[in-house]
């Protein structure tokens, strides 16, 4: 049984279709990534799944519970890490965690024990009695993650968990998230960081204009849409037309990307032989999820 299941989920704002008929299933103990440009509908989808925004149409089940009738039970086992800082600035670090634990009816002693535990998990022990305004942006983010674990959630919902973190903190967070996954905590991860999705996610869904365009493991998606490598050509404007004609005549799969052309699904080096006059204008590099992202959602700005 999937731990999260949505069927024909739709969210409509006045004249905007934010989420358009999305059906998906998240399996227990997997990390499921939601990727998409700004305004793709990721946050709207997550808000519906975490029971803070009612669907315009469609159904959601979490652990077999219909969210419409069991939102309170579901919220008990969810840990939500929001994109925007909503820590309580009127309270200290420890009070933030204790107050949050109280929302979950966690007894005082237990709440205190767990608070210290999650603080040490994210290396915030020295900040126990600090005020929120004394924390750096990265510390606030780690505190939001720590807070999300206070109720020992079965499902962790993360909206851009490492945005604004320095590389050290980012790797710390990734490491902790993989540990949690191996302990059986299901994760629903919204991100625009392709490396993060590749490292953490078992499966990713690429969203665009409220719809899921494609779904699979990062490797599957890469080999489906890009192949194992990307061949990149620098083209100057005079040669552009000729090169494109040549690529077409060879039946190759390519995209124009600014002053470059990306060629995909190349099986053998001969396929690209003689395309350029200077060998340094042709490069081969490993394909990434980012290539998939651009292929599916385009290169122009969305907003």
């Amino acid at each position: 049984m999937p731990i999260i299941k949505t069927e024909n989920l739709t969210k409509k704002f006045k004249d905007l279709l934010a989420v358009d008929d999305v059906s998906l299933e998240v399996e227990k103990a997997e990390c499921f990534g939601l990727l998409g440009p700004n305004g793709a509908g990721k946050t709207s989808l997550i808000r519906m799944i975490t029971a803070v925004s009612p669907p315009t149409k469609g159904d959601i089940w979490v652990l077999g519970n219909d969210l419409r009738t069991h939102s309170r039970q579901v919220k008990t086992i969810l840990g939500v890490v929001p994109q925007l800082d909503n820590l309580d600035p009127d309270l200290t670090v420890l009070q933030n965690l204790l107050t949050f634990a109280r929302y979950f009816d966690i007894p005082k002693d237990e709440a205190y024990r767990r608070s210290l535990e999650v603080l040490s998990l994210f290396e915030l022990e020295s900040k126990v009695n600090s005020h929120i305004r004394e924390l750096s942006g990265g510390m606030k983010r780690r505190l939001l993650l720590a807070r999300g674990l206070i109720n020992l959630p079965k499902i962790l919902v993360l909206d851009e968990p490492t945005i604004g973190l320095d590389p050290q903190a980012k790797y710390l967070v990734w490491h902790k998230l993989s540990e949690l996954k191996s302990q059986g905590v299901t994760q629903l991860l919204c991100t625009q960081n392709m490396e993060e999705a590749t490292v953490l996610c078992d499966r990713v869904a690429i969203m665009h204009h409220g719809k899921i365009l494609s779904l699979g493991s990062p490797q599957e998606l890469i080999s489906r849409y890009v192949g194992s490598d990307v061949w990149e050509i620098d083209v100057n404007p005079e040669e552009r037309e000729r090169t494109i004609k040549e690529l077409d005549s060879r039946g190759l799969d390519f995209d124009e990307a600014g002053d470059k052309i990306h060629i995909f699904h190349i099986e053998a080096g001969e396929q690209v032989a003689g395309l350029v006059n200077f060998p340094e204008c042709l490069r081969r590099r490993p394909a990434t999820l980012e290539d998939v992202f651009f292929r599916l959602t385009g290169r122009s700005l969305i907003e």
Partner: protein
Amino acid sequence: MKPFSWRFIRVWQRNRDVFFRLWHSEAPGFIAEPIIILLAMGFGLGAYIGLVDGQEYIEFIAPGIIAAYAMFSASFECTYGSFVRMEYQKTYDAIIATPLSVEDVTAGEIFWGATRSLMTGTVILVIAAAFQLVPSPWAVLIPAVSFLEGVMFASIAILFTSIVPAIYSFNYYFTLFITPMFFFSGVFFPLSSFPEIVQTLSWIVPLTPVVHLTRALINGEFHLYLLWALALIIILTVLFFSLSLITMRRRLTI
């Protein structure tokens, strides 16, 4: 409309904890100010005014000041206070991601606002008693009236908070609603001093019945119209409390 649950107490506890951490910054507005008004108006202006309804002026205004500042406490708490928590600190968003519902949050805010009224009303009552301005033992019921009054004004305030676009909108609330009541609800002058039309209007705004009820309890003098006063308070409370649960859900769960 969905009902609220006992979990509202969690929001109340959160606000209580914050209040007792920062109470010294709140005290001047709700303890010092009413006492200054009571003494300045009572002794200062009172020296030029003869008996009002058979009482010294300071005795006349004491119950009105209790009712008015209890109103201010709940009103500030559930307009500026709630709006900052809702829009700037995103505290409500954080809370509704836990087992608490929007209705629990709304009720928690309202009952906390009412608790502020209760505290303010009680402190002024005790000080008025120290100045021997409280002749009747019925006055022990005043904290209960202040609390009920608080639930009513907190509900009206939170309803307004749930529909305003920006914090500046509260200028209208205080200038056009709260301040006129402060002057036209029988706090400083008997209603009979006003033209007929103001008297009639005065009887349907929510502060007037509270002032009458508080004054009756302080003096131990009861009239039949106090039943109407109590009924009006209860009707307005139930009405605005229910409405605010609906409008707050609409605001937070888009």
